[in-house]
C-alpha cells in the first residue's frame, strides 16, 4: 500500500473554559488519542452522535484549530509543525465543505466573488472562464454569478460551497455534515454530485456525518466515534459491527420499509460529560456487556480482530 494522504498520530484536543474570576476552570476533552489514516482516493466516513468530537477531528486534521497533543501528516508533510505561511500555501491542497450553507457564505459577496476568493487568497490569477466553469461543474446556471447568497436555496448554496472548496483542485476535501441542514430530496442530489465530482477529479474525501445509513452508502471505510475516541473502524460498508456501540447505532436507524419493522431495543443511560471522562471505556455506562474491567480500564483500538475495535468484549 502506498503512503496514505493523511496520517494522524495520537490526535488529542482539550478545550479549556472558564477559569476567570467567576468560575472554575473546566477542561473538556473533545478528541482523545485518535490515530487514523486516509488513503489517496478513498472516501473515509466518520460517524458519531452530537458531541462525539467528529467535527473537531475534521478541524484538527485541517489544522483549523491547534492540536493539544499528537500530529497530522499530510502527504509526507507534518502539518502540526508547519509555520503559518507554509500552512496557508498548503491549504490549496486541502479544502472543507461546511454543514450550514446559510452562514458559510459571506452575505456581502456575490457568487462570483465567493468563487474568486480561493484564487485571491492564494495569490493565483483568476482565469477568465473559471467562475462559469465552476458553476457549471456543480450544476448551477452561469447567470447566478452576480447573485447574493440570500437569493439562493439551501441546496444551491451548498453547491456553491462545494465549488469553492474544489476551486484549486485540492487533494483532500473534508465534508463536515454537508447535507445535515438540507431536505432529504436535496441531500440525495448533493451526495450524487459529490460522488460524480470525486470520479472526475480523483478526490479524497473525509466525510463527517451523524447518519450511519448515509455513511454506509457513500463511504469506503467508516470510523465510528464515541465521546472523543474511535471505537471501531469498519473496513467496508458490509462489515458487521463488533463494537456494542456501533451495533446500537445500526439498530437505531429505521429503514423506509414497513415490512422491515423491528422491535426497538433502545440504548439506556446517558452519555457521560466530556468534562469528566470516565476512567475506563466511555461507553461502559450504557453498554449491556460492560464488565468491571471496562469500567476500570480503557480498551485500546485492537488490531487483532477482523478490523480495529476498541472493546474488551467484541461481538
Amino acid at each position, binding site marked *: 500500500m502506498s503512503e496514505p494522504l493523511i496520517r494522524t498520530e495520537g490526535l488529542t484536543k482539550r478545550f479549556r473554559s472558564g477559569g476567570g474570576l467567576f468560575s472554575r476552570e473546566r477542561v473538556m476533552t473533545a478528541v482523545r488519542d485518535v490515530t487514523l489514516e486516509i488513503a489517496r482516493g478513498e472516501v473515509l466516513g466518520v460517524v458519531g452522535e452530537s458531541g462525539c468530537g467528529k467535527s473537531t477531528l475534521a478541524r484538527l486534521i485541517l489544522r483549523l484549530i491547534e492540536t493539544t497533543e499528537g500530529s497530522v501528516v499530510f502527504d509526507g508533510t507534518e502539518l502540526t509543525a508547519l509555520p503559518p505561511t507554509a500552512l496557508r500555501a498548503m491549504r490549496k491542497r486541502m479544502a472543507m465543505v461546511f454543514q450550514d450553507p446559510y452562514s458559510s457564505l459571506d*452575505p456581502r459577496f456575490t457568487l462570483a466573488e465567493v468563487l474568486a476568493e480561493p484564487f485571491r487568497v492564494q495569490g493565483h490569477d483568476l482565469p477568465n472562464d473559471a467562475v462559469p466553469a465552476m458553476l457549471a461543474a456543480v450544476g448551477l446556471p452561469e447567470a447566478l454569478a452576480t447573485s447574493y447568497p440570500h437569493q439562493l436555496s439551501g441546496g444551491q448554496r451548498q453547491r456553491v460551497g462545494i465549488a469553492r472548496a474544489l476551486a484549486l483542485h485540492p487533494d483532500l476535501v473534508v465534508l463536515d455534515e454537508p447535507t445535515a441542514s438540507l431536505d432529504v430530496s436535496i441531500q440525495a442530489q448533493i451526495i450524487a454530485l459529490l460522488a460524480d465530482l470525486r470520479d472526475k477529479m480523483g478526490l479524497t474525501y473525509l466525510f463527517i456525518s451523524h447518519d450511519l445509513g448515509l455513511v454506509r452508502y457513500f463511504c469506503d471505510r467508516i470510523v465510528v466515534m464515541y465521546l472523543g475516541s474511535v471505537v471501531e473502524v469498519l473496513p467496508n460498508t458490509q462489515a458487521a459491527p463488533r463494537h456494542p456501540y456501533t451495533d446500537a447505532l445500526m439498530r437505531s436507524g429505521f429503514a423506509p420499509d414497513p415490512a422491515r419493522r423491528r422491535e426497538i431495543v433502545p440504548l439506556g443511560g446517558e452519555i457521560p460529560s466530556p468534562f469528566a471522562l470516565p476512567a475506563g471505556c466511555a461507553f461502559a455506562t450504557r453498554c449491556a456487556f460492560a464488565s468491571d474491567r471496562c469500567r476500570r480500564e480503557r480498551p485500546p483500538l485492537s488490531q487483532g480482530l477482523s478490523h480495529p475495535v476498541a472493546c474488551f468484549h467484541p461481538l
Partner: protein
Amino acid sequence: MSAWPAPLRALRWPVGGIAGAWLIVIVAAALFAPLISPYAYDAQALKEAYGSASAAHWLGTDEFGRDLLTRLMYGARTSLSVSAIAISLSVACGMVLGAAAAWFGGPFDRTVMVVVDLTWSFPEILIALILVAIIGPGTTGTMIAIAVAYLAQFTRLTRAQIMTLKGETFIEAARSLGAGNTHILLRHLLPNAFAPVLVAAMLATGDAIILEATLGFFGLGAQPPVPSWGGMMSAGSALVFKAPWIIVFPGLAVAATVLAINLYGDALIAELDIRSKLRGAG
C-alpha cells in the same frame, strides 16, 4: 424599488419620508443660513426685544431683539456640525479600538472592556461635563467631550459585531482556503460590521444633539454671540416666564431633529434588516 439602496428605500412614505424631509430642511437651513436667513445672527434691535411672533420676525425676537428664526438657522449650523463631527470622531476611534480588542483578545481585550463597561455605565453628561471643564468651554471642547462620552458605545458595538462575525462559518471557510488575518479583517469582518455601526452612529448623533444642547445650557458650549440651540435655551431659561418662545423654539428644533433622526434610523434598520445586530448597544 428593491433595486434602490437601503438609505433611499428607508425614505418610504409616510414616516421615513417625513423624517427624511425634515432632516433635509434642517441640514439645508444650516448649510445656507447666511444666504437665506432674514437677518444677521448678531443684529441687535433692542427696541424690538422680547417680541413674540410677527410678520417681520416669524418666531419672535430674543432679549436683544435678535431674530429667533435667523438664530435658529445659525444654531443648527453649530449644533449639527458639532454633533456630527463629534460622533464621526467617536465612531472612528471606537471602531479601531473595538476591532482591535476583538481581534487581539486576551489581556488587551479585557482591559479595554473593563474601561469601556465602566465608562458606559456613567452618564454621558457627567463625562462630558468633566471633559469640558478640563478642555475649556467652546465648540472644540464640546466636540471632544461628546466624542469621548460616546466612545464606549461604539467600541462595545464594534467589538460585539466582530466577535459575532468571528464565529460565523464564512470566516472559518476563508481560513480554510488559506486566507491570512489581513484578508479576513479587511474583506470579511470590517465590511460586515460597518452597516450596524454606521446606523448606530446616526442614532447617536441624535443623542449627541441633546448632549450638545445640555452643555450649551450650562454655558459650556459655543460661546456668545455665536448661536447654538443649547446656548439660546440657556439664555432663554431665565426668561422662560417672560418670553417663553425664546426657549420653546430651540427646544422644539432639537426635539424635531432628534425625532426625525430616530424615525429615519428605525426605517433604515428595518430596510437593512439589522435590528438583532444592534442589541446591547443601549
